[in-house]
């Protein structure tokens, strides 16, 4: 089978973002989505440090230390963009005004629980940022991650063993192997990469999956 690389996952996520959507891209992997948004669609990116209408990276030498995204990388502002303070910014998030947020994950459970902020290690210094707000706030929470850990275990699990970011919050999972919807009655496979059979995906995932019913 042909696993997707990170850019390909990002491009696949980007394809699902419709014209006019308000979207927050979590720090890390999800920021790649910005580079793959389809041309011809006007998509308005939110950054939780107080920006709507985030534009592309500035040209070298054009960086402005007062204009950064939530990952603290320099960005630009599109025409039509706006600045606001942190309480207003998280009001947008918590108040369900964002159409989508896209988050990375350590684990997602069959119920849509998300774990992406803490490995659970007793010695680990915790840091949560805006992840818990995004997890409960966006109308649709999309997760992008590799399907398996480095040691080959499924990151889609019956129950998260890492500390939760949010309970029952994930709507769709994009991995290097498949696109999977989290439905009230379980996980539903929407797409698989070429050369991957449903049975193989089921075996690798280790949790019950079902195929999307198609018109026979």
């Amino acid at each position, binding site marked *: 089978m042909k696993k997707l690389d990170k850019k390909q996952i990002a491009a696949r996520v980007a394809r699902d973002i419709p014209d006019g959507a308000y979207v927050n891209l979590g720090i890390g992997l999800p920021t790649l989505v910005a580079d793959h948004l389809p041309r011809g669609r006007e998509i308005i990116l939110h950054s939780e440090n107080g920006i709507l209408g985030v534009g592309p990276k500035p040209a070298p030498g054009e960086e402005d230390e007062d204009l950064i995204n939530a990952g603290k990388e320099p960005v630009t502002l599109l025409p039509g963009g706006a600045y606001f303070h942190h309480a207003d910014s998280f009001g947008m998030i918590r108040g369900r*005004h964002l159409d989508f947020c896209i988050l990375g994950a350590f684990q997602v459970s069959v119920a849509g629980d998300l774990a992406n902020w803490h490995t659970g290690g007793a010695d680990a210094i915790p840091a949560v940022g805006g992840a818990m707000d995004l997890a409960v706030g966006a109308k649709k929470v999309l997760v992008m991650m590799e399907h398996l850990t480095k040691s080959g275990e499924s990151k889609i699990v019956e129950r998260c063993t890492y500390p939760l970011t949010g309970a029952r919050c994930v709507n769709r999972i994009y991995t290097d192997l498949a696109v999977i919807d989290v439905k009230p009655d379980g996980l539903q496979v929407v797409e698989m990469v070429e050369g991957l059979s449903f049975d193989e995906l089921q075996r690798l995932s280790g949790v019950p999956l079902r195929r999307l019913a198609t018109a026979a």
Partner: protein
Amino acid sequence: MCLLRSRLTEGKKVRCDNFRPMVNKLFASPEAALADIPDGSTIMIGGFGHAGMPAELIDALIAQGARELTIVNNNAGNADTGLAALLKAKRVRKILCSFPRQADSWHFDALYRAGEIELELVPQGTLAERIRAAGAGIGAFYTPTAYGTRLAEGKETRRIGDRDCVLEYPIHADYALIKAERADRWGNLVYRKSARNFGPIMASAARCAVVQVRETVELGALDPESIVTPGIFVKRVVRVAPSMRKAA
């Protein structure tokens, strides 16, 4: 990848559809912007006195015909036009406001005394904060306002620090009808002077905020430092020319 089907944008939460080619929230007329309001809707109406009152949108709401409305406004109508005319036409089941009784609130007064309208009287700051809470996804909040008064009767209370507080819940709306000074096609708004009043918070608390503006400008013409309501809170914008305003 073999695309089976993409149904991602069909979620029922997205009731007031944003998604049009090249985001353009400008509507041709107040009538077009309010055409889909069903009976039984909760509608916030901006304004404090005449400042910020969306007169043409209210006129269009009267013409549109929706009934059994719940209205959220600071007042309960003045004289014979605007909100007062909507009340007079018996289209309002309930009103939430802070200051219904005024020298010229005769239509409200008559309905109220006849038992034909329900009144939820809310202190002005609590009204504003409940609207803001809806927009900001706050489940409920404790406020010191109205503790120990008739308006807190039956409500949960709690002493927090040195203040006795009352528990208050958000006010969500289906529609908000507000007035701003200037908008672009993304729905970014700036207001004018004290006409700002309830506009920004009502826009955030409604599933579908409809804004009448005096002027529309090109995208990018509004200073991003000075935009008061970012377009994310706005679904529909209608330009109402100053001349139309005077005629109304």
